[in-house]
């Protein structure tokens, strides 16, 4: 929130090639606490690659990643998780046959001293968590396959909050959702920001992006192609996405 303060996460000159494909070329990105940074760009602009680098899924070929001003490496998703980066990718990575509670605590189940699952405790926490995020899921004992797309997205977002993360990466959270569910997801993003987290939001929908983002970073052909305030006009951002301004080579 305060400019000049050390960013929570800083990427410097990140590059990543897949053979002859330049996915990322010298990309810079800063994310502060209490800030929603949107990553926008055309298909293949490098948004998802950058998200995967931040999530520890992909390793950059070169560049520096800093958290709180100290250089870090993110060799795996679990390493990124330990450093406080939680991600929700488009496939959501939830288990269809498990109920909401089990999905929220997946891989982080709570045990008592005898080594038994503390189901009651986990249910209570899930219920409180969903209420904090104003998530509307009819029953936390419903198996995931019975939930709508928006409800699944909400469960996936709730799941990220369990490990007390500091940065949440959301890849296309509103794609293919109804307006009511989009409204819910956007409200959840505002809540995450209100909880003091840094949020990286990747989306194609400029309307959704401009509704919640503090800052919009445009990627084009794997390069930074402009940084805008969240209240910048639709046309300005669109021009940077399509390269209607000056092409950078």
């Amino acid at each position, binding site marked *: 929130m305060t400019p000049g303060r050390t960013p929570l996460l800083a990427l410097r000159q990140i590059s990543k090639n897949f053979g002859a494909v330049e996915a990322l070329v010298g990309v810079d990105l800063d994310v502060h606490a209490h800030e929603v940074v949107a990553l926008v760009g055309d298909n293949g602009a490098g948004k998802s690659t950058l998200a995967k680098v931040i999530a520890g899924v992909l390793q950059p070929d070169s560049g520096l990643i800093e958290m709180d001003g100290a250089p870090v490496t993110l060799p795996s998703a679990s390493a990124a998780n330990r450093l406080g980066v939680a991600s929700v990718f488009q496939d959501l990575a939830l288990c269809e046959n498990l109920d909401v509670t089990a999905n929220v605590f997946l891989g982080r189940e709570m045990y008592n001293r005898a080594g038994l699952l503390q189901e009651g405790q986990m249910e209570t926490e899930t219920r409180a968590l969903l209420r904090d995020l104003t998530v509307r899921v009819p029953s936390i004992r419903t198996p995931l396959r019975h939930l709508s797309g928006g409800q699944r997205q909400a469960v996936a977002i709730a799941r990220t909050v369990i490990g007390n993360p500091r940065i949440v990466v959301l890849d296309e959270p509103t794609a293919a959702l109804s307006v*009511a569910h989009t409204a819910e997801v956007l409200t959840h993003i505002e809540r995450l920001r209100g909880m003091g987290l840094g949020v990286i939001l990747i989306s194609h929908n400029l309307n959704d992006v401009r509704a919640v983002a503090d800052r919009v970073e445009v990627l084009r052909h794997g390069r930074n192609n402009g940084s805008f305030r969240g209240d910048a006009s639709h046309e300005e951002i669109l021009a940077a996405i399509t390269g209607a301004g000056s092409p950078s080579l």
Partner: protein
Amino acid sequence: MSGSQSSLREANRARVVEAVKRHGGLTQVELTGATGLSAATVSTIVKELLGAGMVEVRPAVRSGRRAQLVTLAHRVGLVAGVVVGYRQMRVAIADVTHEVLAEQTLPLPAEHRPDTSLDRAALLVVDLLERVGADLEELVAIGLGLPTPVDASTGLLSVRGVLRGWDGVPVAQVLEKRLARPVFVDNDANLGALAESTVGAARAYHDSLYVRVSHGVGAGVVLGGRVHRGVGGTAGELGHVQVDPGGRICGCGSRGCLDTVVGVPALLEPLATSHGNLTLRDLVQLAETGDPGCREIVADAGATVGAVVANLATVLSPQCVVVGGELAETGEIFLGPVREAVRRRTLLSQFVPLEVVSATLGTQAELMGAILLALQSTDVFENADDGRGNQ
């Protein structure tokens, strides 16, 4: 012993009602999950509530199976309230008793476009109806609030340039065409005034002022129990009273309007160097948690708004001033300076001191007003009925 058991039953009933309210409609199986109560308890409570007429049960399909959807009772039809603001839209479905059955907030981008926003408003109304298990047939009317003066008879914006991009858009007709239901439009501050004077803080008074301090400042004037709209619905446009003759040019074209001094951009600008990128919500939260800079900004805004309110009150002599909108959420931080400014006008404290209170409905006031507008407008419509179309 029996006392604690009956109070337990009472608490369980409250939990079930609260769950139904929060979700709009739930099946009994979902109710057990949502409340953590046993299936038998839920079943007993639902039967009791049915008997008391508090809930309704209607058939629904869940996961391909037939189920009984429990909703709050809404026998006589429903209305929708839609309030479009600068950065968010709120939609609610309510029944004739003003009970809100479902509600949703949608964040909006800066300078959002009328085509996209009205389209989303229509879809949200349909989605929320579905959530409470009702269909469009049951919807009687829609009340729509906009953050700009609206001519109630034509549904057109009466002042150009205040809501950028919306000039000349027949807002009511666009929504009516989408939903095939009558739509009634009014200014958001007027709706807040309607709600507060009907069911809120000013309901005991004939004459009151409602001041809404949000992205801009607006006021609703209630005289003799009716909202005074003025020519073209422009009454109470407090945000366009001149407070700084040498000030900035406002969106309306005049110089130094109140909105250029206490509108959100003007409030956040002095905080940019020290606090960075803030939203109105951040400002309110930080002021509440005791951030000195934010408190200062909010208190100064209160003094500025208070001086203008005092002048308006001197002319109209209302019994009560209700303050609503996001800034009023900070409580006495904002209200104190407003009250102080009003107190300094001796005329206002001569007979009976003018009361300055915060909105009972809080930030819900405008949404409740939209619901009331839809309900009141349709009553008139039904009485005068017979072939006459809506306005």
